[in-house]
Structures are given as structure tokens and as C-alpha cells.
């Protein structure tokens, strides 16, 4: 009898342990921290971009990212999340079942069984924020503020949510077997293509490319890059959706690729122009962070070195294109996030190893060429959809509020003309 009691209490204990294993405090702690880190990429990006524009546009540029953090945070809670991650409809979009977060609560979800559904929602929401924020680099220094707000709300709904669904919400591209650990395709290729469309539709800055437009505050840009690097640990290692070995692998790869890419870019500058630059070093780091994003949970730390170094080199070469081709992607979203993201998607197809992550696949170097193909296909699909849908969104925004400020306001600067403020009173 005593034994029975003991057993009963052991069973009780077992069930408690079971229950507390369902929702892991450690995994939740890491996902909360990761979500906060990805949120910090917003201010990081704002500073990264804000330092690169001319002084008269610094506040407007900071506001672009900041207001998108606000707009998309609300959109995501109301309808963005359910469109991206709600129960699948035809492989294309999420249903409206989780509209306004109905049913998204403190218990776990199918996406991440050891953490509250709400933290998965919040983590993904920060990705929905950062993606349109990246696009703003393309139309910096000339876009109307109201156009940015409207663009962000529409684009998050019409472009980001479906694409996220395709790869992460159970949509057709994930069924196809394409891998995107933390958003190389969903975030970077997607935003870069949108950026190119925006640069083309909105048109060049007055004076581009003849007039010098040097960055007004590069220490601000360096600080922004530092915060981006820091936040990216949440972005990539958080994409394991749990604490543990996989998160750690992604963490290490993230750091290694960022470092390698910064060195790659600086070396290229040194060789071609004799001087490595601060802007080059931090741009290279961002390029490496972009490139490792889709691969972070699928490749080894050693593979991160070439993935990063090549990213630094390729993106350095790519940022020169705009001067030759004549479009004004002002802060090089295409050159860095497009080229870096595409290289990362393909590099995943080259370097991935199933032994590192059973949810992954083997890449070309492990003798499996099919993954590479699937990566190319997924990238291509996103390029196509993003280009068309972004074009439509921009046209709609143009009709409703107008895309560009007047030439006089552009000359005076957006801070004074659009917001009635000056960045500095020194």
C-alpha cells in the first residue's frame, strides 16, 4: 500500500514533469530574449541607415524604420499573423482563423511545441517589421512619410505575409523542400527586390549621381551595424524556436559569417582601391549576416567562413552596379540584401549537412544537387512575386497619397519640410 502511494506520487510527479516539459521555461526564455533582440534590429537598422543619409534627412530616415516598427506591429496582431501562419489554405496563404490573435494564447503551438504560441507570434512579428524596414533604404531622402506608412501596411499584408506563409507557414515552397532557416528568401531577397522596384518607381534623388552625397554621421552607422549584429543572434539563433544545440549552431555560424564577410569586403576594398573603409567593414558584416541567414541552422561553422567571405566580396562588387545602371537604390538594399540573400540561399544548397540538423537536408558538397535546385526555384518564385506585388503596392500608394515629396522639399530636406524638425541644433 505504501508502495502504491509512492507510485501514485511518482506518477503525479511524472505528469507534472511532463506538463512542464511541454512548455519549457528555458526555451521560452531564449525565445523571449530572441524576440527582444530582433526588435532591437529596428533601432539598429534605423541608425545604420540614418548615418548614411545627409544631415537634413536624418530624422525622416530614422522615422521610416521606427514607424514601420509601429505600423507592422499592429498590423501583425490584427491580421498579418493569421495570413502568414494561420491554418493553410491551398498552400498559398493562412486562413483568417487567428484574426486578432483569436486562439493564439499562452499555450504551445504546432510551430514550436515547447514555447507559448504568443511568443512564436511575436518573434515572427519582428521579422514582418524588419523586412519592409529594409526596403526604406531604397527610397531614402525623397519619400513622403504618409506613403511610407501606407506602403508598410499594404506591403506587410500583400507581400510579406504570403511569402512567409509559402516558406514557413506550411505553404507550397516549404512543401517543395526549399530551406530558409531564418529568412534569406523571406526577408532579404524579398525586401531587396521590393527595394529595386521602389528605386525604379520612385526615381532618383535630385542630383544623383553627380552631386556628392556623403554619409553625414558614420559613427551612427557603425553603431547601427553593431546593434544589427547583436540583434541578429536573436534573428538566426532564435529561428531554432528553442534553446539548445541547434540555436547554438546558428549562433556560431552567424558570428563567423559576419566576421568573415567584413574581412572579405575590407580586403576587396584594400586590393581595388588601396584603402579599407569603416563603411565597407560594417557593410561587409551586414552582407555576411544576410548571407548566413538562410543557412545558419544547416551548415557547419567552418562552412560559414567561405559563405561569409564570398558574401563580402560579391556585395562589394554589387554595390557598384547602381552607378553603372543608373537606378538610385540609395542605401544599397539590392546590392547587399539581394545579392547577399541570393548567395546565402544558394550557399545553403551547397553546404547544408543533414547530420547537423535532421530537419535540414544535404547540399551539393554532400552529393545532393537537388537542394540547390530547390533553393534556386524558391528564390526565383519570391523574386517574381515580390517584384510584381511590390509594383502594384507602390502604384496604389502613389494614387492614394503620392510617393514623392516636392522638389523644393527634397532640397530643403525631409526633416524640416515633412516633420518640422531639425536633427541637430549644435
Amino acid at each position, binding site marked *: 500500500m505504501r508502495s502504491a502511494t509512492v507510485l501514485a506520487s511518482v506518477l503525479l510527479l511524472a505528469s507534472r514533469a511532463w506538463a512542464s516539459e511541454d512548455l519549457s521555461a528555458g526555451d521560452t526564455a531564449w525565445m523571449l530574449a530572441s524576440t527582444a533582440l530582433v526588435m532591437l534590429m529596428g533601432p539598429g537598422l534605423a541608425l545604420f541607415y540614418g548615418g548614411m543619409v545627409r544631415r537634413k534627412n536624418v530624422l525622416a530616415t530614422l522615422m521610416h524604420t521606427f514607424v514601420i516598427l509601429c505600423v507592422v506591429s499592429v498590423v501583425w496582431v490584427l491580421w498579418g499573423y493569421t495570413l502568414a501562419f494561420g491554418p493553410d489554405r491551398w498552400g498559398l496563404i493562412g486562413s483568417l482563423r487567428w484574426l486578432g490573435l483569436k486562439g493564439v494564447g499562452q499555450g504551445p503551438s504546432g510551430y514550436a511545441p515547447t514555447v507559448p504560441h504568443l511568443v512564436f507570434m511575436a518573434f515572427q512579428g519582428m521579422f514582418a517589421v524588419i523586412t519592409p524596414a529594409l526596403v526604406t533604404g531604397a527610397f531614402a531622402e525623397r519619400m513622403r512619410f504618409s506613403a511610407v506608412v501606407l506602403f508598410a501596411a499594404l506591403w506587410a499584408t500583400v507581400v510579406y505575409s504570403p511569402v512567409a506563409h509559402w516558406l514557413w507557414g506550411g505553404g507550397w515552397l516549404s512543401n517543395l523542400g526549399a530551406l530558409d532557416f531564418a529568412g534569406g528568401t523571406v526577408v532579404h531577397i524579398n525586401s531587396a527586390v521590393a527595394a529595386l522596384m521602389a528605386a525604379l518607381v520612385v526615381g532618383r534623388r535630385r542630383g544623383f549621381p553627380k*552631386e556628392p552625397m556623403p554619409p553625414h554621421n558614420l559613427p551612427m552607422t557603425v553603431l547601427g551595424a553593431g546593434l544589427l549584429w547583436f540583434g541578429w543572434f536573436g534573428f538566426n539563433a532564435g529561428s531554432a524556436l528553442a534553446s539548445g544545440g541547434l540555436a547554438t549552431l546558428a549562433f556560431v555560424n552567424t558570428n563567423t559569417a559576419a566576421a568573415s564577410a567584413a574581412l572579405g569586403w575590407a580586403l576587396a576594398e584594400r586590393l581595388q582601391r588601396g584603402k579599407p573603409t569603416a563603411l565597407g567593414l560594417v557593410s561587409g558584416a551586414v552582407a555576411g549576416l544576410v548571407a548566413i541567414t538562410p543557412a545558419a541552422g544547416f551548415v557547419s561553422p567552418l562552412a560559414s567562413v567561405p559563405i561569409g567571405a564570398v558574401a563580402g566580396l560579391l556585395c562589394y562588387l554589387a554595390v557598384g552596379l547602381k552607378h553603372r545602371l543608373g537606378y538610385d537604390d540609395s542605401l544599397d538594399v539590392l546590392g547587399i540584401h539581394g545579392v547577399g540573400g541570393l548567395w546565402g540561399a544558394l550557399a545553403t544548397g551547397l553546404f547544408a549537412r543533414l547530420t547537423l540538423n535532421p530537419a535540414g537536408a544535404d547540399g551539393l558538397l554532400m552529393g545532393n544537387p537537388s537542394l540547390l535546385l530547390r533553393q534556386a526555384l524558391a528564390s526565383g518564385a519570391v523574386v517574381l512575386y515580390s517584384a510584381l506585388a511590390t509594383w502594384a503596392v507602390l502604384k496604389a500608394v502613389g494614387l492614394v497619397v503620392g510617393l514623392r515629396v516636392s522638389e523644393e522639399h527634397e*532640397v*530643403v530636406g525631409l526633416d*524640416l519640410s515633412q*516633420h*518640422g524638425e*531639425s536633427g541637430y541644433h549644435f
Partner: protein
Amino acid sequence: MKMVVAVLRHTELQRVQEALLALGIQGMTVSEVKGFGRQGGYTELYRAAEYAVRFLPKVKVEVAVPDGRLQEVLQAIQGSARTGQVGDGKIFVYDLLQVIRIRTAEKGEEAL
């Protein structure tokens, strides 16, 4: 010798500089200033506080020229700095008693 001092819009500085270079002018000194004039300013808003910004950023260009070149320099500046909008700025001309090149101690027009 004369000192020509022009207060201009920032956006026109490059054109002015090119116009002067085209004349063979070899040097100038530039500084940041704030101008108040007929050109309307902006209103700045900081929370509940509104300030009329009556001082607008301008750039001041100083060029020392030999007497004989004064007219063409004035014309070059006026031609290249003009947009036709209120706020284009002004040119002031002073007499210069002496110029010295510090490096060589050359004096007068030789020092320009």
C-alpha cells in the same frame, strides 16, 4: 585687391565653385552660416513647443581677387548661384589692403 563674399544656398555651391574654377580662380574659403532675410522660414515643432525658424542654413564663400578680375568673378557667381527663388543670397565686396601667402611670404596679387 578685392574680397568678394557671397552668401549662397548650399545646393548652388558646387556650381559656383565650378564657375570660379572655369575663370582660373585658384582658391576660396567657405564656411557655414545661417541667414535671415525675406525668404520664409519653417516652423519647428517639439512636443508642445513651436518655434519659427527664421534662420536658414546658407554657405558663405570668400574669394580674394585682383582688382582687374572683379567684374567677371561677380558675374560668374551671380550667374551660377541664381535659382530665381527668394533666398538666393547676396554678394558683398570689400577692399583688401593686403594679402600675404603664409608659406612663402609673398604679398599682394602674387599671393592669390
